[in-house]
């Protein structure tokens, strides 16, 4: 006697698939204290050259924000790792220039002189590409806010012997729907979706030479990264719906060249 079996799962219905429940906050939607960008001017320096630093922050309600800038050593940023707030660091006297304090915005605008010997440890062939210095930023709603809520960030400053150092991109005009604006403008916008555009984006991208580790010199082109932020409405790609009429807030755009160069524009908007 032979036995033959034939089996079949005739129907298998998954009512759904593995899923998540709810939504995560969007990076573009501003709903809490944030450090959005930091800029060094110039964007790339030579040893001994002085650089001015500034940050772009957002705080709901437009209250003041205190930002401590400190120099990180060996990739360790003391206050970022300790997660201390600027007020306590200053009160306790832990931050001083000897300990790496670069500045406290807005009271003490951060400045920094690249150490003269920072490239000495590099072979001559690598000094043109150079190295970088890292800063740690700690922002807090200060002096009148909740100092428990601290925002931490890092910013790298390229230091090199390049004959053509990087420069910051220059963001001059942004287009919101059909309106052109520059940083600081106030716009009155309709309560509908608007297309967002950075005017002259292609012109911002620099060509530059890059020396690889084997000594080959390549010509490269920057790719400009554009990020939009607002405390109103929601984003869908390059489109922004500012929400219902009657709202007012900020529309912010930050451009980065991928080599440490940064610029931004901040617009005040009212929705009619």
């Amino acid at each position: 006697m032979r036995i033959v079996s034939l089996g079949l799962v005739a129907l298998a219905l998954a009512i759904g698939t593995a899923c998540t429940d709810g939504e995560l906050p969007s990076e573009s939607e501003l709903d809490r204290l944030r450090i959005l960008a930091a800029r060094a001017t110039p964007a790339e320096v030579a040893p001994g050259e002085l650089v001015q630093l500034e940050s772009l922050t957002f705080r709901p309600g437009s209250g003041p924000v205190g930002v401590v800038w400190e120099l990180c050593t060996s990739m360790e940023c003391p206050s970022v790792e300790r997660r201390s707030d600027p007020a306590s660091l200053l009160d306790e006297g832990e931050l001083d220039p000897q300990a790496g304090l670069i500045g406290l915005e807005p009271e003490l605008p951060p400045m920094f002189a690249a150490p003269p010997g920072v490239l000495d440890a590099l072979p001559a062939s690598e000094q043109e590409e150079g190295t970088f210095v890292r800063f740690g930023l700690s922002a807090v709603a200060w002096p009148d806010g909740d100092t428990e809520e601290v925002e931490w960030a890092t910013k790298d400053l390229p230091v090199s012997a390049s004959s053509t150092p990087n420069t910051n991109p220059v963001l001059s005009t942004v287009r919101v729907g059909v309106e052109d604006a520059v940083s600081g403008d106030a716009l009155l916008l309709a309560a509908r979706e608007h297309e967002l555009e950075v005017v002259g984006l292609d012109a911002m991208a620099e060509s530059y030479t890059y020396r690889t580790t084997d000594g080959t010199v390549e010509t490269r082109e920057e790719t400009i990264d554009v990020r939009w932020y607002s405390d109103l409405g929601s984003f869908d790609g390059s489109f922004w719906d500012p929400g219902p009429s009657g709202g007012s807030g900020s529309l912010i755009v930050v451009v980065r060249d991928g080599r440490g160069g940064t610029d931004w524009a901040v617009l005040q908007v009212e929705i009619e």
Partner: protein
Amino acid sequence: MDWSGPAWSLPPSRSSACSTRPFQTTLDPRAALRWQAWKGGTLKGGTGLHHQAPQDQVLAFLDEPSGFQRTWASEVGIEQDLWKQGSIDLTVFQRESTQRFVLHPNLEDPDTDPFFVAEGLGRARGLEVMLRKDPVGPLSGWVSYTLSRSERLDDPSDPDNPWILFDFDQTHILTATGQWRLPHDVILSGRYQYVTGNPKTAYVGAVADLDAASWTGVLSGDENGERFAPYSSLDLRASKLWTFRSWQLDTFIDLLGVVQGQNPTGEIQAYDFSEALLIEGLPLIPSIGFEATVRF
């Protein structure tokens, strides 16, 4: 060799084991004893040494043949028949591991210091209970419960270094299955499982890289100090066997996940690690099928 008698036995399959890798041989002595102490009741115990080679990702960083992780595993237990209808089995176990490969806790020079060192410790202890109902009569099934805790110590030289949970430590594992044979070759069966969620390390914040517009999460110092939600699921099955002169047709319907919890399989972090969404397991999955058996 089988040392067995009316009351004692030493299972030969567990007397020893050998492991050989290039240039290395280990001897793993093991012993297990069973003693029928009274009618229907058996006491049992065992102990032994187990060696385990480093995992491949560790071997890739080892320049020369290394030792093996050593684990002493011991257990004692009791089994009792229950009126010819089933049995209950209780086992208490403990495992102590040494020479676990861990990341070098004091790595200073990557050019000379090894990335991994065989200095970690591990331990696991717990108990298992299994209650069986043999297929005598229409009902059968079993319930199994495990209570355990498994921990590791990566740097025993540092007195401040605490024991932390293994990534797959599960405090409670409960599994119950049952089957009910009805007339006319109809069978109803089900399974329920509950497992404590795996440990995880919470994020306490994040640091933004302002040049790359990206974020790096900052992990809590309390490694594996939190857990995912537990897994629980009830599956049901009904089957009917149709018998004909020369063939049989077994039809069934399965309902997987009739009752279940969130059953997370992971989580997705927000851009700034401020919150997370759970990736939940599969929902209710009904399926029907058949199996035909033909006799020639």
